[in-house]
C-alpha cells in the first residue's frame, strides 16, 4: 500500500501531540490561582489533536500533487538563499546582502544574469533609502559601509 501524504501527516501529528502532552505534564507550577492551570489547555489540545490525526491516518484524503525532484531542489535552493540572507544580514549589512539575495532569487525565477544583477542593485539601494530615510526604520548598515558615509 502506498503511504498517502495524509497518513504520514497523521502519524507525525500524533507524535507531536504526544510530545506536547509530555512537555505539558512536566511543567512545574509554583503558584496558580485558577483550578485550570497552565497544563490543562495544552493537554486537552494534544488529546484533540491526536484524535483528529488518527482520523486522518485511517481515512486519508486525496493525495495532492507533490513537487518533482527538480522543483524540490529549487525550493531548497530558495530556502538556502534566504537562510544565508538571514545569517549575513547583520554582519555584512543590508545593502550588500540584499543585493546578493535579490539577484539570486531573480535568477532562480528565470531572469537573465544581467536583469538579475540590475534588479539587485536597484532594489537593494532603493529600498535601503526608502526604509531608512522615508520610513525612519533603522537597518543594519554593515560595518564596512561606515567608513564611506
Amino acid at each position, binding site marked *: 500500500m502506498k503511504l498517502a501524504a495524509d497518513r504520514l501527516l497523521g502519524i507525525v501529528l500524533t507524535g507531536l501531540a504526544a510530545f506536547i502532552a509530555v512537555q505539558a505534564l512536566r511543567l512545574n507550577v*509554583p503558584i496558580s490561582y485558577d483550578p485550570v492551570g497552565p497544563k490543562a489547555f495544552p493537554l486537552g489540545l494534544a488529546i484533540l489533536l491526536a484524535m483528529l490525526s488518527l482520523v486522518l491516518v485511517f481515512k486519508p484524503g486525496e493525495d495532492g500533487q507533490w513537487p518533482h525532484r527538480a522543483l524540490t531542489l529549487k525550493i531548497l535552493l530558495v530556502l538556502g538563499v534566504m537562510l544565508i540572507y538571514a545569517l549575513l544580514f547583520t554582519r555584512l549589512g543590508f545593502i550588500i546582502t540584499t543585493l546578493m539575495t535579490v539577484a539570486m532569487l531573480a535568477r532562480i525565477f528565470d531572469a537573465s544574469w544581467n536583469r538579475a544583477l540590475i534588479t539587485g542593485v536597484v532594489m537593494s539601494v532603493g529600498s535601503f533609502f526608502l526604509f531608512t530615510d522615508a520610513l525612519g526604520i533603522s537597518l543594519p548598515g554593515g560595518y564596512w559601509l561606515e567608513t564611506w558615509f
Partner: protein
Amino acid sequence: MKINKAFHQYAGMLTLIGGALAAGNVHAQSEATECIAPAKPGGGYDLTCRLAANGLEETGMIDQPMAVSYMPGGIGAVAYNHVNGVRNDDPNLIVAASTGAAVNLALEKFGEYEADAVRWLGALGVDYGAIVVKDDAPWENLDELMEDLSDSPDDIAFGAGGTVGSQDWMKAALTAKSADIDPKSLNYVAFEGGGEALAALLGDHIQVFTGDLSELKSQLESGKIRVLASLSEERMEGPYADIPTAEEQGYDVQWPIWRGYYMGPNVDDEAYEAWAERLSELSKSDEFSQLREDRGLFPMSRFGDDFNDYVLEQVETFESLADEVGLKQ
C-alpha cells in the same frame, strides 16, 4: 515600462515627504547614541528610552538625536543577553530597564547572565505602586480591606497587569503578606497590562487593583476610583497629596518602580562615568523635570556606582522575597 514609472513616482514622492519629515534622521553612524527598548513599541520601556532621548536632545547634551530601537522578547531577557553577548562594549548604547527587570533577574528568568553581569547606569525617574479600589467600594482605608480579606479571601479578587512573579503581582503579594495573609490564598487575576486590569476594576470584575500611581491620574480626576494606599516612602505631592502611604497605616510595604538604564559589561570606565555624569546633570535641569512630570514620574537621583549597588541590593532582596512568598521551589 509603465509600472516602473509609477513605482518610481510613488517611491520618489514618499522619499521626498518622508525625507522632509525625517530631516536629521541618520543611519549607521558610529557617533550616534542609541537606546534599546527591550519591548515592542509603545510600552513602558519605549517611554523610558524616549525620556532619555528627548531630555538629552532638548537640553542640547547630545547633538544628534538618540536612536530608539526595539528588541522585544523574554520580558527583557533577549536584550539582556544581546548586550552581554554581542554589543558588550558599545560606549554609545544604553538599554532601558526598570524594577520589573530586577524582579526577573531575581527569579533567574534572564538565563545564564546574573544581575551583576551588566553595568547599571542610573535612573531618571520613579513611580510607586498603589492599592486601588472603585469609588463605591466598602473600604475607606487599608485596615478595612485587610480585615475583610482575612475574613473571606474568596470574596475579594485582586488584579493587575502582570503574571504571578511579576512586579505587579509582587505588590499584591507583599501587601497581603504585610497583614499576615498568605499570598497563595489570594484571588489574583493576571491581565495583560494595567489598562485591562483598570477596566476590569471599573466593571466590577475585580475588587482591588494593584497598579502604579502614574497610570491613575485621569481616573483620580474623574473620581471613579479610590486609592487606599500608595506604596511610597512618604506622601507624594500634587494630585496625590491626599493618598496615605501604606506605612502610615501600619503596613510595611514599599514598592518603587524606577525607570533607568544599563550598559554593556565591557564598556570602559571613562564612557560609563561620562554617561552617569550626563544623566545626573540632565536630571537636575528644569526642562527635564517638566518632561518627567509629564510622564507622571517622580524624581529619583541615583547614578553610576551608587545606582549599580542599589540595583544589586534590590535583586538580592527580591530573591529572598521570592523565597518567602513561595515562588521558588
